[in-house]
């Protein structure tokens, strides 16, 4: 039986955290200053239809149930996802040369509705302007993977010269393989639902912001 034990630990069920309940289509706009430094990021979240319906009903808007909202209803909804609790990082992560870049909380925000889906946009400023001497990586993910983000609304650059953002979709096969190694490998005992590392990140698309040299 002893020989069989490593095999048995390979059969542990995945924590519930490893499957999402909310799906968000994300769009990113990277704002540069005249010196090609990254100063701000605008993040758009389009919630899935079911979660949108849940939010609308919880806020008591859309009383004609057509999935469209009047301006005064939008005003009620606006900011519903901007009251960030302590420790919430905003699910947007920036890094340069592997070092995390710090951001402010949400500054400006607005809310709209498209085809029954709640869409919110917020702006965050970098703690200090970041020179693009090397590429900046931007990822949208919920570390706990309760929410699944996909950068399907595109990534664009505003301002600056000669800079562009490219999206590399998450390698889902690699993500599931990594997930299984973490869950079932020798370190699996260290992890539970609330300290599970990097699951969400493995499923994250990556946006890379880079400028052509000499610009």
């Amino acid at each position, binding site marked *: 039986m002893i020989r*069989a*034990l490593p095999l*048995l630990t390979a059969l542990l*069920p995945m924590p519930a955290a490893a499957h999402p309940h909310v799906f968000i289509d994300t769009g990113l706009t990277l704002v540069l200053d005249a010196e090609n430094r990254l100063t701000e990021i605008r993040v758009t979240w389009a919630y899935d239809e079911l979660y949108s319906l849940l939010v609308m009903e919880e806020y008591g808007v859309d009383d004609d149930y057509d999935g469209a909202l009047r301006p005064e209803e939008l005003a009620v909804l606006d900011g519903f996802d901007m009251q960030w609790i302590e420790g919430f990082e905003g699910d947007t992560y920036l890094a340069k040369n592997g070092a995390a870049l710090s951001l402010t909380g949400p500054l400006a925000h607005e809310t709209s509705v498209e085809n029954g889906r709640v869409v919110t946009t917020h702006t965050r400023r970098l703690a200090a302007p970041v020179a693009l001497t090397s590429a900046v990586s931007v990822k949208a993910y919920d570390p706990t993977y309760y929410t699944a983000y996909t950068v399907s609304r595109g990534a664009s650059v505003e301002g600056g010269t000669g800079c562009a953002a490219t999206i590399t979709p998450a390698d889902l096969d690699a993500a599931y393989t990594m997930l299984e190694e973490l869950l079932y490998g020798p370190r699996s005992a260290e992890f539970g639902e609330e300290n599970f590392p990097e699951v969400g990140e493995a499923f994250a698309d990556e946006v890379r912001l880079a400028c052509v040299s000499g610009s």
Partner: protein
Amino acid sequence: MRLGILIPLALALAVTALVWAAGGFDALARWAAQGQREVQSDMAGAIRALKAGEAGALAGLMTLAFAYGFFHAAGPGHGKALIGGYGLGRRVSALRLSIIALASSLAQALTAIALVYGGVFLLDWSRERMEGVAERWLAPASYAAIAAIGLWLFWRGLTGLRRGDAHDHAGCGHAHGPSPDDMAGVASVRDAALLIGGVALRPCTGALFLLVICWRLGVDMAGILGTLAMALGTATVTIAVALLATTAREGALAGLAGGATARRVLPALELAAGALILAAAATLLAPFV
């Protein structure tokens, strides 16, 4: 020695059933996640159609809720590991374990309904509060029930092995050790209750979403029926796991009827299944300790 061959054989079959139970297949996990995403969108449309009084909207919502339950259960989850592990560890008829699987899914739906309506009417809770109760109190209670099942199987396997040894040494004719017939003894009501409780105590977040939306929209019955349809969808997967597990066990042990080897292998299998379920429960419980 036959024992040396048969245990790995039984375990290989166990692995087939449980790798799936544990969500170990990339393609399946991706397919399930994509399916859930699509069904989740369609469900919102069906709820709006229902509210608008469109004909056939309720049937549409039921179908989608069923599909949601199926996709959600096809992904990773605690129910499959528990039902599958038990089916491998204990001799229980495929029919009986299937009924237990169905009952546990339906009971899980009732937990969600009780949590939402109890929370709404008795305690005036917000949805966040309900999700909090589900995560902080019901989830660990569910995992504790799972641990109890694992411990029970482990203990039975251990005592079964010990009695098997004593029997061999004594070399006498009467059956002090458990025979396969004893093992065939019906899974007790207590086991069934623990299995159902282990699955049911933790409600599905998707069911909470559906119930809260339908309550807000004043179409409560659609939410309740949808939640039950979701449970039936979940049950199709857990029943498949139950059938797989019981078949794997019977297949592995078919050649052992009544021999001394069976007296060793059966408790060993029980012990292994118990250890597996215990380890699973320990992982799930760890963040709460």
